[in-house]
């Protein structure tokens, strides 16, 4: 069975600094997708970034980038120039290529301090 592990329940970072959230997963699939979702205090979950397993290049979206290590089954999220609005719960998720369902990590609560 696939699993997703986020080993850091809580993290904090100073405004304008860089922070990395870790995520590891376990699967025997070769075709899959990985996601980071953000859930701010207002509670609406939104997609931050997505990575296709067949792509070697790490995905980036403005200040958000990932370090995808397929062999190590690691998918960390780096937030550069942290902003107060980045304060949120961050969830890592895995989806096998032939499955509609996502497997979710338990989340990392990130606080950006002024």
């Amino acid at each position, binding site marked *: 069975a696939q699993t997703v592990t986020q080993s850091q329940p809580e993290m904090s970072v100073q405004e304008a600094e860089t922070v990395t959230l870790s995520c590891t997963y376990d699967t025997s699939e070769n075709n*899959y*997708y990985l996601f980071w*979702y953000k859930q701010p205090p*207002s*509670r*609406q*979950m*939104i*997609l931050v970034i*997505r990575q*296709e397993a067949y792509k070697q290049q790490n995905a980036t979206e403005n200040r958000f980038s990932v370090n995808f290590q397929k062999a190590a089954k690691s998918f960390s999220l780096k937030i550069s120039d942290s902003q107060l609005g980045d304060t949120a719960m961050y*969830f890592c998720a895995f*989806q*096998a*290529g*032939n*499955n*509609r*369902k*996502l497997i*979710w*990590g*338990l*989340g990392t609560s990130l606080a950006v301090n002024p």
Partner: protein
Amino acid sequence: DVKVTQSSRYLVKRTGEKVFLECVQDMDHENMFWYRQDPGLGLRLIYFSYDVKMKEKGDIPEGYSVSREKKERFSLILESASTNQTSMYLCASSFPGASGNTIYFGEGSWLTVV
């Protein structure tokens, strides 16, 4: 923008009541999901639907049922509410078929069963 609307943000119900949580999406998505979110447990899938009148059990379907009579609407039903169903409920939707599609979430429904 995709909009997933959950009809009730906050509900308080009595033990034994029948509870309906309604969700509507405006993007013609085939896939719709109901999740439950509890502190320390992350997101757990209750049911999902990949077409009108089609449904599949998720990881924790016990005590819940769903209805998908129209493509845009996916209802979660608690047949006889219990206090252990006090939780945040998240509805979501996504495009059909191929994996890797973004999941769009509603704002959530806070249910308290007393």
